[in-house]
């Protein structure tokens, strides 16, 4: 009964080759995107958002490895276009909830790098007072209904928030993010079904970065796309190129309109890629460096937007480098801010478990 050891994902080369075959890169090697439908005056800001996310994520690995950030975190480098494309299509009062890989969503939704970074550091100045860390970021005032440590759970919170929005008729639209791995947990489909039946103002966004930890999507999912799976639950669903911010934005605008008009939820599968390991410090044995390089070279979402903007003359020479430098400074500031922030007072460690007062015997 003993098989041969087999360490690298056997289907890997196939993905890579399929990808390469489908690619028709432009001169700079990147696949072109069409940004003509986007609000021209805002696109530099979008690029700034994406660069900030990239810089933020890329700063984290050494901070976790050195223990300054306790524990490891899940970086989203490579997935910037999904976060920014979705959030830019929303209105300010709209709601977003994230899974365990959330920094890009949180930053896109307006949380400051300081609030997020200090939270990762477990400092009192973090957005959850240092109690939550990366998987429990929060800012209700910005419509950010939390990152979540449990696969699929954030979609449930967004779904429930959408139910409240419907009942309160307040015009809010809610977005629940999850990953390709989250497409295999039963609760995801309960949430999708319920939202569809109740025609909730919900946008379901599956960030299909093709891996769940070390598990390639095709290892644990047979048949069509995740969007095709969703169609069986009776809601409009489509797959978009998650590295193309224009595609993500357009799909979200349409979904938002439908939701706001009482047309119910929409399912968006955004095909994307994470450049880093599942978590900081991971030793990657399940995919090749070639594969990563191919994604970077042909589909990097930041570079694709930059290249389009440059081609259309909306980015002057040197401006991109300025943006990167600016973002880097902001991230650096968030690190210094975190380092100099106080840790939460241990005397408060047990506070706020309930609103109802209690002590070590029960009712206080």
């Amino acid at each position: 009964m003993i098989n041969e050891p087999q360490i690298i994902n056997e289907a890997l080369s196939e993905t890579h080759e399929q990808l390469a075959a489908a690619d028709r890169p432009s001169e700079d090697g990147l696949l072109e995107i069409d940004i003509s439908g986007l609000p021209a005056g805002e696109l530099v800001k979008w690029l700034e958002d994406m660069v900030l996310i990239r810089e933020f994520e890329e700063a984290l690995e050494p901070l976790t490895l050195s223990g300054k950030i306790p524990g490891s975190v899940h970086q989203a480098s490579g997935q910037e276009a999904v976060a920014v494309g979705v959030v830019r299509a929303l209105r300010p009062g709209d709601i977003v909830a994230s899974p365990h890989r959330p920094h890009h969503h949180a930053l896109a939704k307006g949380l400051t790098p300081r609030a997020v970074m200090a939270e990762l550091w477990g400092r009192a100045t973090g957005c959850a007072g240092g109690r939550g860390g990366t998987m429990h970021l929060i800012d209700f005032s910005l419509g950010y209904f939390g990152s979540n440590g449990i696969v699929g759970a954030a979609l449930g919170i967004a779904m429930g928030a959408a139910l409240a929005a419907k009942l309160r008729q307040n015009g809010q639209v809610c977005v629940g993010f999850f990953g390709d791995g989250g497409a295999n947990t039963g609760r995801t489909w309960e949430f999708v079904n319920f939202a569809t039946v109740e025609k909730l103002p919900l946008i379901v966004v599956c960030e299909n970065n093709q891996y769940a930890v070390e598990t390639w999507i095709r290892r644990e999912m047979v048949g069509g796309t995740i969007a095709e799976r969703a169609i069986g639950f009776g809601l409009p669903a489509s797959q978009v190129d998650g590295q193309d911010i224009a595609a993500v934005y357009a799909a979200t605008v349409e979904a938002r309109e439908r939701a706001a008009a009482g047309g119910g939820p929409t399912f968006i599968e955004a095909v994307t890629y994470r450049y880093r390991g599942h978590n900081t410090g991971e030793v990657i044995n399940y995919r090749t460096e070639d594969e990563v390089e191919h994604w970077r070279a042909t589909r990097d979402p930041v570079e694709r937007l930059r290249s389009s903007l440059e081609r259309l003359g909306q980015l002057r020479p040197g401006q991109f480098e300025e943006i990167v430098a600016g973002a880097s400074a902001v991230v650096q500031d968030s690190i210094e801010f975190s380092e100099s922030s106080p840790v939460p007072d241990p005397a408060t460690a047990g506070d706020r478990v309930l609103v109802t007062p209690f002590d070590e015997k029960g009712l206080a």
Partner: protein
Amino acid sequence: MTAVTVGQAFQQGLAEEMEADDRIFVLGTDLFIRGGHFAQVKGIGPRFGHDRVIDTPISEAAMVAAGVGAALNGMRPLIDLNFIDFAFGAMDEIANQAAKSSYLWGRPVPMVIRASSGVALYSAQHNNSLEAWFMHMPGLITVMPSNAADTKGIIKSALRSDDPVIFLMHKRLTGVRGEVGGPDELVPLGRAAIARPGSDVTIVSSGIVVNKVVKAAEVLASEGVEAEVIDLRTIFPLDAQLIEGSVRKTGRALVVTEEPPFASVASEIAAMVQEEVFDYLDAPVQRVTAAHSPIPHSPGLMEALIPQVETIVSAVRGSVERWPSTEA
């Protein structure tokens, strides 16, 4: 004042609160027409309409998630799980989401989860007693009324609480009648009640078991032992003061519950009482619980596993005989 069933008392309390606060809505399976498997919300659907009584698919995770998300976004949902056993399918939503939001995010989840509970027919998978689980999990309030008045008074408090409340109704109490209070009479969360005053032994219980304990107290009274019967009403936060005060007086305590024995509500009360009033105790705090066993279908087997009046009486007798009172 006319007597209503526990089920009707629940409906009254719920309807009154729904009239007063339009953030409250009810969500679960088969509620609108049937009123739930125990007719616990019968009539609420037609009265308040489909926006306030939402029938769902058989999707317990989605039901509770809907409640958590809606509560975080300004509503006050009552999620009806029918049987508490179905909470297994929503346990992450209860224990990891609802119970942790106040702590992590500073925004509590004002949601009530109602479920029928307690030992009755339908065998093992429909007769799990989970009050100890909820008591153990930080971030939840758990209540378990024993009569119509408390059912009404507590559901009203639960619906006004900012915390997530697990509201357990004993299946075999559903049809039991009693008088109830008016629209402004609330029973506070966290406060136990003395169901029968007494001086010789404190017997703590909750839910349907209170009735058996009161019967046992009558038998004991005829033997000259006056039992003080405490009805917990709220499982957590525990009304430790009331219990301790009583045991200081009586010097003897017994906890009677219908749950499995280990790491139970009864364990907690026994541990707490001996810790807090050790010097007043004439005898160890005893526990009479259900057996450490699933609940079987055959009624004779089922009854053999749970506390009966006679078991309670003889536990007290045994204690008094072996450890006679020090004073008197």
